[in-house]
């Protein structure tokens, strides 16, 4: 082995603690990168494959009731590849074990053939026997949640009539990757069912014999989707077409896309941030090392080693640390990715989901970390090249401590010798100290920003369920009812307060920007389901316009005062031009509010309600649930506590769960930086410390010189870190926010307190490690060999 390589190995061994700390920082950055890009790819590709294999439609066209032969008109539209008409609707499932009604989505399957579009993936049992009209297939996750198996019976109420069906198979389907009850954000396997039945059975149950109420279409490669949608709408219009929409507006696909995009966005922001910190660390360590080795560098140059050869020597050191860190990070990233996949399968009903690591992820991870590390390293190497050998060989001139300001002079007068050494070094070497302060500040910023984002998640839940929504449960009706239903609810014993709501699905449009969602009609001064400003003050509804959530206003790029087009997709389907009169801070979903009477007037359906928010006496809840279950008007009941719980679970899985990983990582990095700063200071002062000891100072006094310096750096770094963290939390919070929920950047005192504690704990631990070494310092060899 060549002697320089041997030197390299010995140097690595000497700085093993620091190298490990930097390697760990790189490893976690790469871990995140590999895990997140791998997840994005796995989700994306699995979804694609699943859709193709089971022929998921690309256009969905709900219609009130169209005769069967109309489906034959659709293939004539240019760009349409295949079509299928089916019957779909909602029903209630009645389980003895559950007090509340359970909502179910029903979709039909062709009687005698496999579906041309939207096929199913049979997991257990068998497909439907067309001869038997009592058979149904059930969504696997719902069946599992209630321990229902093929062969079991299920009572289903369709259009007021209850009937017992026999479950013959458990299935999943690509159109139900993400399953939520209408109006709910987070999935809850127990409380929402999907049932497949034969077209004949469904036709009879929904009064759709010889007719369909949903057309499915797939497109050719060169199809122009907007044109197809328009043509479909034109054909279905006479039959009560409710507006065709593309796959990307299908609720299930939208949520999956949102998750993938969220992951993609987070993976573009956060791992690079972590790697940048690692690069900075590596830069500090290597530059200090080069500083300490300038004589050796000069010597190599004196012997005729070229700049390139000397540079390569140090570059190898950087590469070794970066590549080992990256490989470790890749391996850990694969393990973490596999674990995350399990979490994903809880919420996204993929038939399978393999964490696929492409070699490109691996290569990317290594490449990125090496580049990050080299960026830091190259700056240092430039300095290596600049040294002339004669200059490099002379020991660096002792730092000039002669010019010292008045305050410092006064301060030093009251200090003992070691105290003076600390003060002089800190004040006379601002660049060195500045680097250390910045490094520790960066670590602290990461930790502070991550803890603040963690509280941001809690705040989202808190704002939504304590400030905005003050009801106990929400009832939705099978179809819009007269407001007398509200009085009926009001009269139930134990019901304290009832507030009507009218939700209609609608497409909101501002120029080219559209959002498929709903308009929620609220009473003028809502008490249970409020809209609030960012200061959490309630906003009253007004006759003449809509209030948009800030996220929706952003998406549509519309400001208060401007006019929004609302294409209602219900009833007579009016198109409304409404002024936006305000925005509301909603951290969940993207709601749009309107005054309920104004909405009903626009629909020309006066005094209608589609649901209600209730506040109840918790002592009588069971009684109330049972009554609600027996009310034919009630389609579903959602309890706030359960909704909150499933949302919390959702946030704790998928992209949201990354926050735990990242917070952990932020603390690893913080420790890495603090430890490194301590080690570097120790290495630089080894000779000074040895000299002090030789002069008769005790171990404690010698250690004080070093630890005192660290303490000073630490206390300057804390406010710097707090400021940086404040800025950083905006970026990270934005990275975590999605269409589903927004994470506000919060700056709780406790978040920063946690970060400060972390930095202090890291300092104490590093200080202790360093002190242990100082105590063991071998005086003679420290004085003899300059390293």
């Amino acid at each position, binding site marked *: 082995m*060549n*002697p*320089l390589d*041997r*030197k390299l190995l*010995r*140097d690595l061994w*000497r700085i093993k603690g620091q190298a490990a700390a930097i390697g760990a920082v790189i490893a976690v950055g790469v871990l995140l990168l590999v895990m997140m890009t791998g997840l994005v790819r796995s989700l994306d590709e699995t979804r694609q494959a699943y859709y193709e294999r089971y022929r998921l439609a690309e256009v969905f066209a709900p219609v009130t009731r169209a005769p069967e032969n109309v489906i034959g008109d659709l293939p004539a539209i240019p760009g349409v590849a295949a079509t299928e008409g089916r019957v779909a609707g909602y029903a209630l499932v009645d389980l003895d074990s559950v007090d509340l009604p359970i909502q179910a989505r029903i979709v039909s399957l062709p009687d005698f053939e496999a579906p041309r579009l939207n096929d199913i993936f049979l997991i257990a049992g068998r497909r439907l026997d067309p001869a038997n009209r009592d058979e149904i297939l059930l969504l696997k996750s719902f069946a599992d949640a209630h321990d229902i198996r093929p062969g079991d019976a299920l009572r289903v109420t369709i259009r007021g009539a209850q009937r017992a069906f026999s479950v013959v198979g458990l299935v999943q389907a690509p159109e139900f990757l993400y399953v939520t009850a209408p109006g709910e954000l987070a999935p809850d396997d127990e409380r929402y069912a999907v049932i497949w039945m034969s077209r004949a059975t469904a036709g009879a149950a929904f009064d759709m014999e010889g007719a369909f109420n949903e057309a499915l279409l797939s497109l050719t490669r060169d199809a122009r989707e907007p044109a197809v949608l328009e043509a479909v709408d034109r054909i279905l219009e006479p039959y009560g077409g409710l507006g065709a929409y593309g796959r990307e507006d299908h609720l299930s696909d939208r949520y999956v896309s949102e998750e993938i995009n969220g992951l993609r966005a987070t993976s573009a922001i956060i791992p690079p941030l972590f790697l940048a910190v690692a690069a900075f660390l590596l830069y500090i360590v290597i530059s200090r090392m080069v500083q300490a080795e300038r*004589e*050796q560098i*000069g*010597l*190599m*140059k*004196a*012997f*005729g*080693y*070229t*700049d390139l*050869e000397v540079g390569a020597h140090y570059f190898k050191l950087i590469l070794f640390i970066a590549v080992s860190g990256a490989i470790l990070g890749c391996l850990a990233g694969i393990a973490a990715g596999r674990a995350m996949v399990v979490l994903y399968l809880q919420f996204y009903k993929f038939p399978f989901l393999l964490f696929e690591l492409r070699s490109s992820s691996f290569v990317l991870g290594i490449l990125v970390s090496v580049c990050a590390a080299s960026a830091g390293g190259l700056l240092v190497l430039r300095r290596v090249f600049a040294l*002339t*050998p*004669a*200059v490099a*060989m002379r*020991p660096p001139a002792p730092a000039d401590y002669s010019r010292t300001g008045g305050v410092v002079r006064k301060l030093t007068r009251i200090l003992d010798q070691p105290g003076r050494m600390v003060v002089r070094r800190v004040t006379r070497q601002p660049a060195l100290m500045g680097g250390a302060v910045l490094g520790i500040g960066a670590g602290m910023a990461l930790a502070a920003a991550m803890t603040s984002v963690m509280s941001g998640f809690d705040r989202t839940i808190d704002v939504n369920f304590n400030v905005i929504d003050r009801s106990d449960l929400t009832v939705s009706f099978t179809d819009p009812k007269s407001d007398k239903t509200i009085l009926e609810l009001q009269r139930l014993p134990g019901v304290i307060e009832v507030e009507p709501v009218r939700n209609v699905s609608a497409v909101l449009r501002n120029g080219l920007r559209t959002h498929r969602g709903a308009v929620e009609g609220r009473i003028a001064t809502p008490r249970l389901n409020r809209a609030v400003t960012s200061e959490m003050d309630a906003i009253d509804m007004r006759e003449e316009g809509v209030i948009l959530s800030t996220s929706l206003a952003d998406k549509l790029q519309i400001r208060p005062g401007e006019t929004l087009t609302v294409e209602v997709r219900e009833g007579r389907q009016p198109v409304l031009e409404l002024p936006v009169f305000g925005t509301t801070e909603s951290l969940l979903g993207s709601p749009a509010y309107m005054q309920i009477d104004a909405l009903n007037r626009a629909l020309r359906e006066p005094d209608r309600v589609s649901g209600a928010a209730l506040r109840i006496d918790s002592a009588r809840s069971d009684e109330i649930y049972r009554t609600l279950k027996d009310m034919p008007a009630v389609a579903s009941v959602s309890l706030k506590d359960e909704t909150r719980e499933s949302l919390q679970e959702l946030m704790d899985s998928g992209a949201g769960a990354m926050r735990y990983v990242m917070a952990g990582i932020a603390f690893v990095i913080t420790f890495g930086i603090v430890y490194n700063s301590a080690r570097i200071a120790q290495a630089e002062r080894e000779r000074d410390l040895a000299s002090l000891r030789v002069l008769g100072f005790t171990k404690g006094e010698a250690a004080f010189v070093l630890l005192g310096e660290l303490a000073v750096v630490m206390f300057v770094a804390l406010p710097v870190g707090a400021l940086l963290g404040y800025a950083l939390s905006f970026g990270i919070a934005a990275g975590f926010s999605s269409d589903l929920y927004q994470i506000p950047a919060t700056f709780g005192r406790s978040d920063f307190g946690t970060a400060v504690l972390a930095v202090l704990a890291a300092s104490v631990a590093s200080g202790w490690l360093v002190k242990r070494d100082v105590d063991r310092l071998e005086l003679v*060899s420290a004085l*003899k*060999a*300059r*390293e």
Partner: protein
Amino acid sequence: MTNVDPTTGSLACVYRTEGLTKVYGEGPAAVHALRGVDLALPGGEIVVLLGPSGSGKSTLLNIIGGLDRGTDGTIWFRDQELSAMSDAELTHYRRDNVGFVFQFYNLMPSLTARENVELVTEIAKDPMEPEEALALVGLHARLDHFPAQLSGGEQQRVAIARAVAKRPRVLFCDEPTGALDSTTGRAVLKVLKGVNETLGTTVLIVTHAAATAGMAHRVIHFADGKIRKIRENETRLDPDKIDW
């Protein structure tokens, strides 16, 4: 003032300088380490440079050795102008022609004695075996010791082994015997003389030990950044005979 005519023997000269100056720093704090050095050194000689501390001996050595640049003046190595070379050319000049023994040993602390020598033989054209070079200075038994495990004199001998191992054309020694007792000191000088005689290497020795001058072909007296006097020895002493 000087008895050297820069034009004489210029063809046989390994080194020739004209008006070489070196100023460290600027303004009132400027230090004039060399104040116009004119020198012509024939090849194959042992040259001893004497002078008080701070007179600029190391500075001159560093500049001729290609480790540093003068502020003004020209330097020739044979027919190449050192003062006009780029950094890369200087690197090659050092790599191919020059060996150094430094005043402060300058060993690599993380390399053993043998490895310190290998550091140079690795990139030399026709080097000795590292073991052979270390045997020359009597350190064949300490091959695998780290500098921290060697005494000052032993470290200096490793430095000499390292310098001669590449069989350089020119060998610069800045106080090679400063830290050594008389016996080892003589042994080191014998090594230098041997290198000079067997390889024809020009050896330039800076020293405070005036007696060393006895073994030189040529003695240069240096003071205050200038050459005071150059003397050629008619007869040269054997290192064994040098009065320490």
